[in-house]
């Protein structure tokens, strides 16, 4: 039973008295929800029009979709998304979890360490991309440093290697955001019921086993949340790639968000850009719908139990 009765069931004079609170509740919510709905619908509508430089009327069916799906850019971007998305999520989750477990060993300087792992979150992607493009550039970055120090055969040239370049984006993205995963996992570890752990310890269970059997299972919901947030980040990644590789070498590190931007604003074809954006949203929905369903089931279970 919800704490307040539905508003509509109240007599009208009460509603009038409650006008200020209705305004405060509904106006911001409606504006915010309105912008989401109209922007998404507007883009979907654009994807069916012959718009080029500016929005235009007309209907061209699926022509824009076919054109986008036929380009090498989109194919490469989509393959990259699968690679980058899975690589990034797995690496940042595992790195975040390991760091959280290590920090949870009651070590000295935890505050400092936590700040160190979190600070990349504070920096803009443009800066991250630029700085990492210096470090990863074999001519001026890490490779040059190591070569100059004497190890002349050392090679670290993923940035210019079209097969490995996508991994430079993975590295940078993990660096930037695994602190977030660490923070959530750390918080999760801290909220594990101490009695459970103690009971296991009394039973003589070793620390590794305690983590595997008792603690980690309780982190499951956090893991799902972090994974979804990171996936969403992976799918919409834009500034980082633009500053780090610019989609290169060649077109080897294209990602859907870059293709959308490219069609809309570089190639002057709003219709195709909008079609690419809708395709991107569909990919997002493919990730989100299972998550939402899962959460709805969880909530219903919680409500029943």
């Amino acid at each position, binding site marked *: 039973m919800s704490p307040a009765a539905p508003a509509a069931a109240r007599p009208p004079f009460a509603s009038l008295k409650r006008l200020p609170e209705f305004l405060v509740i509904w106006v911001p919510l409606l504006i915010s929800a309105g912008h989401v709905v109209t922007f998404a619908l507007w883009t979907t509508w654009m994807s069916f029009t012959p718009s*080029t*430089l*500016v*929005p*235009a009327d007309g209907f061209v069916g699926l022509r824009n979709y076919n*054109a986008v799906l*036929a*380009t*090498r*850019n989109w194919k490469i971007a989509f393959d990259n998304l699968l690679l980058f998305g899975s690589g990034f999520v797995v690496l940042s989750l595992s790195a975040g979890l390991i760091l959280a477990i290590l920090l949870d060993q009651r070590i000295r300087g935890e505050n400092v360490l936590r700040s160190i792992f979190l600070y990349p979150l504070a920096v803009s992607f443009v800066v991250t991309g630029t700085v990492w*493009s210096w470090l990863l*550039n*074999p*001519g*001026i970055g890490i490779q040059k440093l190591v070569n100059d120090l004497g190890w002349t055969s050392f090679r670290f*040239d993923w*940035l*210019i290697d*079209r097969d490995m370049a996508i991994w430079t984006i993975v590295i940078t993205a993990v660096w930037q955001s695994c602190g977030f995963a660490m923070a959530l996992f750390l918080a999760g570890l801290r909220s594990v019921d101490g009695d459970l752990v103690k009971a296991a310890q009394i039973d003589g269970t070793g620390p590794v086993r305690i983590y595997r059997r008792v603690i980690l299972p309780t982190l499951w919901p956090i893991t799902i949340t972090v994974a979804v947030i990171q996936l969403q980040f992976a799918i919409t990644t834009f500034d980082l790639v633009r500053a780090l*590789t*610019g989609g*290169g*070498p*060649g*077109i*080897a590190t294209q990602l859907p968000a870059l293709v959308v*931007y*490219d069609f809309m*604003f*570089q*190639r*002057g*074809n709003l219709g195709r850009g909008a079609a690419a954006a809708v395709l991107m949203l569909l990919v997002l929905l493919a990730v989100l719908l299972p998550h939402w369903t899962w959460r709805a089931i969880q909530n219903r279970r919680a409500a029943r139990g």
Partner: protein
Amino acid sequence: MSNISRRAAMAGTAAALAAPGALRAQVKPRLTAISQWSAGSDGAAITALGKKFEERGGVWQHSPVPGFTTDMMNKLRAQIMAGDPPSCSQLKGPEIAAWSKIAPTVNLDATVAAAGYEKVVAPDLAKLHKPGGKWAALPLQVYRTNTLFVSKRALDRAKADKLPTTWAEFNALAEKMKSAGMAYPVSNGGSRADDGQKFEACLAGISPTAYRAACMNLDEKALKGPEMKAAFTQLRKLADWMDPNTAAQSYAIHLPKFVAGEMGMMIQGGWAQGVLLNAGFKLDDFIIAPGPSDNAKPVFILNADAFIFWQRKEADLQAGQKLMAELVMDPAIQTMYSQITGSIPVRTDVDLSGAGWSDGQREAARTLKEAVAINQVVLSLAHNMAQENGMTAAMIDVITEYVKNRSITPDQAVARLSEAVEGAR
């Protein structure tokens, strides 16, 4: 959108009719301009132009949009959609015609005729600035994108004294430099435009006729012709001589090595001269020559910057546009501008013999005149002069992928290029 445009167009025309010279003279001319020229010699040149504008009693309001070209286009689009376009903005090539369809532009015919400008501009170039037969934009400066820069010290190191004029000679010299110990005889940048520029230099150097048919007219047969394969083969040679560590950086990062003779040759636009001088190098550190041409006659791949003028109702803005147009066409202003940036004037009647011009600029201006006469002037693909941005980007995709991926054969590249053209049509 179209309703608003029409209304604005009518208002603009009405204002133009209602405000003859007498009334204009009373207002102080004002110009709102956007461009991406925010730094270096480009920035210095436009600032100098602004000073001249102010000297003539105008109010100069230039907003440089830093960053990528797309950021400037986004800004222009946003302002046009908001019904508040700048009174003039940087725009070039076929995009002038495309953008002039979405918002009304100023008809500059009278001002251009009064200046007698049409006679002194290369016809191919003039056409780009006259969408629908009316002048709506004015070219400001011209660059040759297939300019060959040779490092003096590298030339000495290779013990060579003759500059290459054909691709065969170019290749021979590059080999010579390589055996003299230069790891990368060709100095390069890693951007998309850089890759495209090298391709167009190859193709136009091999056959300007094939370039015109394939890259400018998108002729299906020409796109699959033997010259295309030859151009991709030559491009592969260039790619093998370039420093692969460049990633997506600007060619400017290699300039110190180029001058020091650790890199030998550079195919760049004339703007590289301004950048070299700005970086503190001297004119005798490098030699400027026309890019290789296999038919031994000069080939000029043309790139021009221009301003498009958007219709405004305000009398002061209209007066400002007229003043700006007059300034842009003025030979003295073009001289000032080109001397700062390293370009050459749009006007073919400017005398470049005086001080302030480099031998390279004189040579480029002379080549332009000669190439116009024998119809060997072509428009640059890499710098968005030959095609609209969508087509250009689709073609450069193929070229840049080819440069960075050794496993693509010239035959595959030719096939992919014509596919990409079909897809973007």
